[in-house]
């Protein structure tokens, strides 16, 4: 409730020092909020996947057990986690202020990211070549959508890394660049987390069914 405290001689009415906001923390916080909305995108797709993976939705086509390969998915999981580890090394180098270290970490993370996306692309292309493309059944539609949405996020992350390599070289570690590197780290870890969920719900559970 409102307490009616009396103003005294020490009451402060204006605070001229208050303008200094921590811009990096504000930007990082906003990025967390963005990731919450991105999480909701994946949640909706996962929910749709659950709805559309009953035998009725296969329309006579292949189901989860036929389109996923848990072993291959495991390699993908290792690659994406390796990419996150490489980016973490870049963050450690950022703490030490080493441009070369950051660049090296990002380059490795990028290479592993590209490897991951191409494996996913290869899977989808192989399915399409068998005549089991996304327009075969509702199940395949949502399977392709899930993999492709994640792949699209990965692609954006890779493009972002490329831009950051240029910006590190051009600007050094300015407040803007550091904020972007920290946000990119969250983005990259988030995509790896999503992949782990995809692996568990689609590859492992699907293979078991």
């Amino acid at each position: 409730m409102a307490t009616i405290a009396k103003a005294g001689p020490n009451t402060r009415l204006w605070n001229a020092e208050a303008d200094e906001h921590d811009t990096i923390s504000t930007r990082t916080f906003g990025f967390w909020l963005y990731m919450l909305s991105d999480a909701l995108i994946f949640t909706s797709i996962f929910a749709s996947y659950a709805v559309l993976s009953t035998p009725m939705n296969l329309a006579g086509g292949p189901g989860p057990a036929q389109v996923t390969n848990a072993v291959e998915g495991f390699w993908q999981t290792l690659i994406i986690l390796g990419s996150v580890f490489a980016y973490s090394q870049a963050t450690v180098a950022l703490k030490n202020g080493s441009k070369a270290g950051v660049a090296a970490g990002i380059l490795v993370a990028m290479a592993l990211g590209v490897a991951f996306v191409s494996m996913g692309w290869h899977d989808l292309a192989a399915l399409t070549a068998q005549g089991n493309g996304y327009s075969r059944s509702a199940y395949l539609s949502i399977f392709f959508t899930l993999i492709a949405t994640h792949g699209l996020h990965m692609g954006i992350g890779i493009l972002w890394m490329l831009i950051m390599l240029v910006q590190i070289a051009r600007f050094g570690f300015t407040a803007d660049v550091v904020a972007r590197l920290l946000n990119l780290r969250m983005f990259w870890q988030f995509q790896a987390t999503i992949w782990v969920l995809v692996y568990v719900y689609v590859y492992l559970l699907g293979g078991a069914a």
Partner: protein
Amino acid sequence: MQVDLQGPWSPLFGRLTLDAIPYDNPIIVGTFLGAATIGLIVVAAVLYYKKLPYLWREWLTTVDHKKIGVMYIILGLVMLFRGFVDGLMMRTQQVIAVGPDSPGVLGAQHGFLPPFHFDQVYSAHGTIMLIFAATPILAGLGNIIVPLQIGARDMAYPYLNAVSLWLTTAGAALIMLSLFVGQFSNAAWVGLMPLAELPYNPGVGVDYWMWAIQLSSLGTTFNAINIIATIVKMRAPGMTWFRLPVFTWVNLSTSIIGLTAFPVLGVALSLLTADRYLGTDFFTVGHGGNFMLYIDLFWIWGHPEVYFLILPPFGVFSEIVPTFSEKPLFGYLTMVAASFAIAGIGWSVWAHHFFTMGMGPDLNGYFSSATMLVGIPTGVKIFNWLFTMYRGRITFTTPMLWAVAGIFLLLFGGFTGMMLSAPAINYTVHDSVFVIAHFHCMVLVVATGAFAAVAYWWPKVFGFKLDEHNGKLFFWTFVLGSVVVFVPMFGLGLEGETRRLDYIFNPQWRPLLIAEEVGIVLYCISIFYFLKMIYVSLRDRVPAGDDAWGTGRTLEWMTHTPVPFYNFAVTPQINALDELAWRRENGLDKVKPETFVPIHMPSNTAVPVIIGVLAMAFGFGMIWRIWWMAGAALLAIIVAVIARSFDKNQGYILTAEEIAKLESKTELASVIAEQPKRAPLDHVEAH
């Protein structure tokens, strides 16, 4: 499943041909001529008074939260008018097309709208009113008021704020374009499946609907991020959580809904997009598609969206009622808790929109009782407002009248909502106009809240009050119109009139339909008084004081009127809930800061408006399947975003001397005054 596209397609123009222009329809041609004339007059006036540079520098490229808010509200009001005209057409069609002997003109067997045209009109009405009228007006209010109420200089991300505005505007522009080029969706504002699928809806109508919503909902999501971050990160020193004004609290709760609900809509529409463009099978009949999935996804967004709209008006009432009762708000903490309870419960009631789907008694029972729970926090709010008024010194200014009317409408809508929450009743009135009357009472709360807020905060932004006399005439005609339209509609719904009828088969309903038409005429009169109110206020411009109503309680009334573009000359230190009321009680409300420190301000940028134009081009390209256009626009957006990240402009510094000068003559610092160019900084140390 892949479906062949009907009609011609060329690489250069996609599906666009001259046939897409409905020049044979006198209603659309008339509208086009009217809109084109008004547009030409506006453009000519801007050029004649040489205001183009001013418009570009001070408005189109601005990142000032108040100007962005004003533009949001203007956009919302224009779309509100468009949506109203759709409503007018529907009511007029229904009053003419009664019984087999009713006359028909303009190619319609009954009335003046053939079924296909009528279907587009109601689809456009719903889409426009909810997404392009109510949402921008409320977003604009939040934009203007939240930073002022928490003692901030701007939103957390001024640039993103401008991007949100222009994305929303791009969506609205697409909807307007659908009137003159092609057609709009005839599958209702919710997108009825599988009617909205390509085989059953081969035209571009559904595509217009889809892309317009998609663009604007992206803008709304960004705006939600911005408002949350602003409230969490930008509060003035001493502004602890439980000193936040209730309007700011509801903006936080409503933005959390916006942030979490709109992505679901995005997914629902994207899956439909994939169905229509790529031939996937999410909501199709056959190939294992499941169109009830769409309805679930849509309402998982749709119901939180309803509370996204209703919560800001609750906040507006919570500001206005104490101000004009000259008492602190009764039950501040319960008001805050109720806002979050409503937002939370809003997430768990979506299936009450389709009890008749056949979910079974268990699920219906769950969604029914969850829906009834909403009544508790809403009731708490109503009692809090009533207890605030109790024994207060009430002055019935226009904002207060709107607030009281809003509370009454909330009762109408709330009680009928409680009726609808019982599946047994719901089964009998499902898709009847009883439901329409119910949710119109609720969205009219949004309208009264918006008009209350505009009247209440207008002087803060523009420096003078809205004319009270015409404001009250506007109020009474509007409220009377609402009653005369929607009370008979409850009756018709109970008698069995279903929604979306272009022909009324039961002549006994005619008297009540005529009553509804009378209500629509009252609405038309209210629009006249609204315009007159704006005209008279602009003509007279009676200056308002800093605390325009004399009994304001919150921080925004401590700034100058009209509010300077930097908001507060010196950031205030907050000592209490209702800081201004506290200062007034301590005799400190007239104390102004004397020494100033430099202020770091963001520079204007053209990137957001360019992104908006490109987004519209992208949408247009996708709608008409002009692939080169869509591709080029998307690429250009990506390039613009990347290029902007290489921009070294770090804003500019407003020096202490300049602030002192502007503070002595604040109309020069007002948001509508033209500002001299200030040199940008190209480097700033990280704080």
